[in-house]
Structures are given as structure tokens and as C-alpha cells.
């Protein structure tokens, strides 16, 4: 690890101020990506701005219309929340499948979506449910939040405060995890919402994306067989030692099918 200055500001305004003034400063939420990167000396920062201790950012609020999750709420807390399990069980299931217990105990929803790893689970949940990201400056719909690999609509000094999830009629998330890291080789979130059916895919490409052909087929008939005939093109899909682009494309259809079956079943 290279030397850096550790700061733990009391307010979001103070945190944003450090980010604006120091070019090589970075925010830390749970630190589940940042700390290993620093330990390996793959990044050199001047300041680490820790959001831990900002109690306003932690917590889950459920109403009839939706569930709001504070940015610093851990995956473990979301997975165990009775309110989330009741309102959006698919979201609790998603959080329960992230990494391992240690990661779920430290990692946060705000950190995960701000990092926007191409294989992270939460981006599929946000896009699949049509969630809204609440930042210190504005509200951003999930469809406009995730821009590309590790790229989001966040501006420098803009900090995620919470995520608002509308409650779907039914939904499910299915992923094919890497057996070691539990990152999604492919993960598919399917939801039947008030605004129609949404299918969001993570892990397969550089960034979470929707599959309009599957959404249209499921809108006609919400059944597993509706997605079987829909295959996605391999253009732009990830390819690595774990899975080829063709295999990932195949997995998208398989996971979508399983997610639809799970949504109907539960």
C-alpha cells in the first residue's frame, strides 16, 4: 500500500469538498474493492475519504410504494431485512448472493453502484426494477446512471445518498457465479413492474444492459418459454478465461429463463 491521508468527514458536504479540491482523492464506502486495489499497489491516492459513520446514509425504509435503501447500507443488512424480504424478495436474494459473508458484512449498495464493476450484481437489480439513484445533487433513473465499464453518471464530488426501488408485481434474479469470487459471470434480473416487464443483464458485457426482445416476449406472455427463443448477439460481450462470449450469450437466455420461472414460482 502506498501512503495516503485518511479522512473521515462528518458531513457529505465536507466529503464532497475534499473530492473537489484533491485530484487524487477517492471516496470509500465499504472498501471491498478499494482496499484490495490499494493493498496491491494498483492505485495511488492522496486522500481516502471514508463515509463510515454517516448514520444518515444507513437504513432501509419501506412504504406501500417502494423501498428506499441508504447508500451505506451493507449487502448483509439488505439480505436480512424483513421489510425488503416482504416487499421485494428478489432484491434480498440478490444481496444475499454477493461475494462472501465478509464482503456482505462490509460492502455497501452505494459503493457497489458507484464503482459499477461490469460483473457486480446490484446494477442488474437497479436497472431491472427501474430504481432511482438519489445523490447529493439530483435524482438519476437507473437506466441513465450506469454508462459503461466502471462509468456512472456521477460527477466529481457528487455522492450517492440512497436508492429508491419501486415494488414490482413479481421479480427474480438468477446468476451464474464465478465459483471463487461469486462475481456474476452472467446475472439476469427479470421484473414485472407497473410500467411493463424489464430484463437487465450484468456480467455479460462491459456494463449492465436491458434485453428489449425478451421484455417484449415476456410482456405478451410471462412464462419461461417466452425467452427460450431469444438469443442475444455476442458482439461486445466479455470474453475471459472463465467464459467465452458465446457461452455468456447462451447463459443470458438460460438465466433469464430461470429468473422468469422463479418470479412465477415465488
Amino acid at each position, binding site marked *: 500500500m502506498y501512503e495516503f491521508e485518511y479522512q473521515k468527514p462528518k458531513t457529505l458536504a465536507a466529503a464532497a469538498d475534499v473530492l473537489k479540491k484533491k485530484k487524487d482523492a*477517492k471516496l470509500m464506502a465499504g472498501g471491498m*474493492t*478499494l482496499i*484490495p*486495489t490499494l493493498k*496491491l*499497489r*494498483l*492505485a*495511488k491516492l492522496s486522500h481516502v475519504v471514508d463515509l463510515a459513520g454517516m448514520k444518515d446514509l444507513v437504513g432501509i425504509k419501506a412504504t406501500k410504494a417502494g423501498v428506499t435503501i441508504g447508500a451505506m447500507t451493507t449487502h448483509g443488512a439488505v439480505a436480512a431485512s424483513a421489510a425488503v424480504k416482504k416487499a421485494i424478495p428478489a432484491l434480498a436474494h440478490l444481496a444475499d448472493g454477493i461475494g462472501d459473508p465478509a464482503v456482505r458484512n462490509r460492502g455497501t449498495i452505494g459503493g457497489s453502484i458507484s*464503482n*459499477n*464493476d*461490469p*460483473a457486480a450484481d446490484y446494477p442488474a437489480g437497479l436497472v431491472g426494477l427501474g430504481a432511482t439513484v438519489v445523490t447529493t445533487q439530483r435524482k438519476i433513473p437507473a437506466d441513465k446512471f450506469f454508462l*459503461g*465499464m*466502471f462509468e456512472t453518471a456521477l460527477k466529481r464530488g457528487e455522492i450517492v445518498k440512497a436508492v429508491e426501488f419501486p415494488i414490482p408485481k413479481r421479480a427474480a434474479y438468477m446468476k451464474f457465479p464465478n465459483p471463487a469470487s461469486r*462475481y456474476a459471470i452472467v446475472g439476469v434480473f427479470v421484473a414485472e413492474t407497473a410500467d411493463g416487464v424489464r430484463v437487465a443483464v450484468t456480467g455479460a458485457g*462491459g456494463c449492465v444492459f436491458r434485453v428489449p426482445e425478451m421484455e417484449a416476449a415476456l410482456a405478451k406472455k410471462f412464462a419461461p418459454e417466452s425467452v427460450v427463443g431469444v438469443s442475444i448477439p455476442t458482439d*461486445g460481450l*466479455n*470474453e*475471459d*478465461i*472463465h467464459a467465452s462470449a458465446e457461452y455468456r450469450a447462451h447463459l443470458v437466455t438460460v438465466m433469464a429463463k430461470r429468473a422468469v420461472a422463479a418470479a412465477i414460482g415465488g
Partner: protein
Amino acid sequence: MEIKGAYRIAATREQVWAALNDPEILKKCLPGCEKLEREGDNAFTATIKTKVGPVSARFSGAVTLQDLDPPNAYRIVGEGKGGVAGFAKGGARVTLRDDAGATVLQYDAEAKVGGKLAQIGSRLILGTARKLADDFFKKFSETVAPGTAAEKVALDAEGQAS
């Protein structure tokens, strides 16, 4: 790992060729390039800072131009060391073709990464390489033909620009 792509640039083949051999233009278009200096006729030294998500690394190394066939094609080859982060090397075969007053630039690139970067980032390398290649050729198109937007050309099943 291989990355292919093509761009249609609103300039003549000679103009595009000249730009491909101009270190100032290359420096401007290479994402994160801090230094690109001519060492010999077709050799350069370069320093490039890349940033991918949480990772940032600075690579220093050599860039050479090979198999020159003006104004039709060349190979650009680079190799750099990024300190503890590891090393990266790669090359791209660039070919130019006239297309109704404009030029179609096609590239076939391959990249290799080793060391810690490869160890923890293997699943991210293809996506990163694709993005860097796209960023470079997009900016290159816009620099060579100012005022026009980069126009990507689709490749057919044989990997040729149609």
C-alpha cells in the same frame, strides 16, 4: 485476445496516413498519453497513464512502427512496464482504403497483460482494451477530419469492413 474495428474518416488516404505517422497527433489521441517522443525513424518512447475503475497505472515503454506500406498499412507495436502493476504489450495492424472521397481505417489489434494486473484483472482486460481502442480511433477520426463525428463501420462475418 483480439480486438477489431473500423472507422470511416472524412479525409484522403494520404492525410490519414500522415496523421498516423505524426507523434503529436498520436499523443493527442492515445488515451492517457503523457509523453510520446521520437527516438528513431519509426521508434518512439511513450508514457501512458491508464485508469480503469479503481485501478490506475502508469506504463513507460517503446512504440515502434513496422511493416510500413505507405499510404496503405502499417503495424504499430508497443510494450510497456507498469512497475508493480505488471506489464502490457500489444500491437495493431492498421489498413487504409479509399471509400467515396473518404478513408476507411480498419484495425486488428491484440493485447497481452501480465503481472498483478493480469492476476486480478483478467476478466476486465478485453473490455478495457476495446474501450481504449475505441477511444483512440474515435478521437483520431475527429482530429484528422475536424468538425466531423467519428463514424464506426460494421464488420462482416469475415471481419472485413463492409
